[in-house]
């Protein structure tokens, strides 16, 4: 059951990205190109997504339990540190270079854009580096 609902959520998420235009890197770069011919559409994607999610999180906080999987896991971290800021700054550079973030990269793979595998493989390598780094920090 948990895998079925996760699959459906992923499917709807992917369709949302496609409808929104986020699965098209050119559209994303048009949003990031504030000094050129700016396309502000993606601000409306955030507005729509946050608008619905806001109520989902309010409900989650009130109910505390999920339907299929016990306690709802909400992120516990609150500190604003160098990993958060530095990591986000690095990610933004990557996002600006190609117009792709993690969700759309998987949608692009499904759309048959085979060269996105280079992005995905490099992203996995990046996750692996960070895992190793975190393991080292935690063992100290």
């Amino acid at each position: 059951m948990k895998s079925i609902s996760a699959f459906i959520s992923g499917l709807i998420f992917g369709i949302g990205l496609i409808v929104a235009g986020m699965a098209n890197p050119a559209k994303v770069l048009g949003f990031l190109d504030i000094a050129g011919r700016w396309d502000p559409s993606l601000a409306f994607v955030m507005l729509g997504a946050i608008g619905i999610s806001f109520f989902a999180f309010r409900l989650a906080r009130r109910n505390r339990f999920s339907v299929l999987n016990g306690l709802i896991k909400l992120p516990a971290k609150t500190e604003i540190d160098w990993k958060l800021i530095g990591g986000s700054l690095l990610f933004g550079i990557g996002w600006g270079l190609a117009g792709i973030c993690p969700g759309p990269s998987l949608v692009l793979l499904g759309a048959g854009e085979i060269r996105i595998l280079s992005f995905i493989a490099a992203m996995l390598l990046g996750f692996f580096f960070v895992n190793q780094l975190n393991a080292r920090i935690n063992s100290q």
Partner: protein
Amino acid sequence: MHIDWELFTPETALTGGAILGVAVAILLLLNGEIAGISGIVAGLLRRNNAPADIQWRLAFIAGLIAAPVIYSAIYFRPSINLTNNLWLLTSAGLLTGVGTGLASGCTSGHGVCGLARLSPRSLFATLSFMATGFITVFIVRHLLASTSL
């Protein structure tokens, strides 16, 4: 600043965003998990993961990959314009993996879920990646493009 009204699609953007919100709500309220894509994928690489944990992550990813196939079958093939430059894609992927790994979140985890639950941490993350996103495109399209590079 010059808005390109021909490219501007507020209706589909808002609709697509709302669909994303529904997906976030399903994963949160049924599975009790945050729909942050970098976190879902990176969680696969953790050591000693329970099989059930691996399963839902793979199922979510399979849904994302199936989305364009199903969308194309019942509607039309979405327009996609992706660079051919493999070095650019590889560098962008590495920066994305290291960056979202360090920050524990990307556009979905911080930009949508984090902002929706009013997390200050996610606000700082979102402002940070937006800032370098804007700056990077400015450098690539307006500074490098106007020189002989």
